[in-house]
């Protein structure tokens, strides 16, 4: 009887030792290989299309006429850029009124933030101009120089 108990104890011990050995062998060894994530970022800017600039002017009026059109510029963060507008001082070839266009920049404008930056185009028609109009009122629909381009250079 005692030999039987000893035999069971021995069997259990051997089984436990085998399980421990088996568990130790399940721990996998590690081999490490590292790599880099390389990213090439091409800097770019985008500009929204400004709304049309609309003036209402009365011939020989005593005060300048003004109009404003907002637009936005979005550039990669940290990227320097400049904003310009074509034909910023011109005489409309349909109604004969001279006007000027200027860009108003926000604080921090000229360097991209990755976010939209608000700009505006401010137009002015100086006072005292007669213009060209053979009727009670005229619009410059037929003007060939009424289309302007706002350009962001980066």
């Amino acid at each position, binding site marked *: 009887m005692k030999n039987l108990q000893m035999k069971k104890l021995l069997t259990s011990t051997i089984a436990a030792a085998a399980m421990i050995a088996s568990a130790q062998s399940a721990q996998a060894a590690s081999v490490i290989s590292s790599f880099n994530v390389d990213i090439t970022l091409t800097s770019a800017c985008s500009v929204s*299309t400004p709304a*049309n600039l609309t003036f209402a002017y009365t*011939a020989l009026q005593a005060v300048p006429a003004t109009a404003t059109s907002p637009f936005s510029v979005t550039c990669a963060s940290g990227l320097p850029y400049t904003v310009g507008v074509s034909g910023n001082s011109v005489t409309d070839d349909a109604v004969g009124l001279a006007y000027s266009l200027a860009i108003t920049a926000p604080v921090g404008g000229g360097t991209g933030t990755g976010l939209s930056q608000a700009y505006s185009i401010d137009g002015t028609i100086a006072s005292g101009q007669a213009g060209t109009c053979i009727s009670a009122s005229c619009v410059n629909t037929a003007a060939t120089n009424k289309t302007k381009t706002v350009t962001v*250079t980066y």
Partner: protein
Amino acid sequence: MHESLPLKAHTYPAIAARVISFVVLLALWASPSYAAQASAQFDVFISLGVPNADLCRSSTQIGSFGEAVVVTCSSGEIVDFSGDTSAFPWSVTRGDAYRFATLAPTSAASLGTVNSYAGLGPVSSWRRVNFAGRDYLELTISW
């Protein structure tokens, strides 16, 4: 002790080419690597109106006495002076005119005596003009 050997004549073009290449590469390196652009277009619309008081221009030059004069106003209305002008005949003018304007006296008493005279010589005309709530006396002398 080594003596420096004189450069052979045919080596100068090669050196010059290398120098030019270096300068070009240096310029390319120093200049911005790109100058890209983004752009958008918009239109400038102008509505031009004319004041209530018409702007009128004569479409004919000064001609002979009695000649019809056509004046076109900004409203598009054509004013013809060739009709019956016997009541207020136009003065004969052959050249330019000077125009003066001054504030009109507020009372007739201060105007004094106006010596009217019509005869050969420069033509003068007077009229009272009301502008912005004030009266002006306008004198035009033509010849």
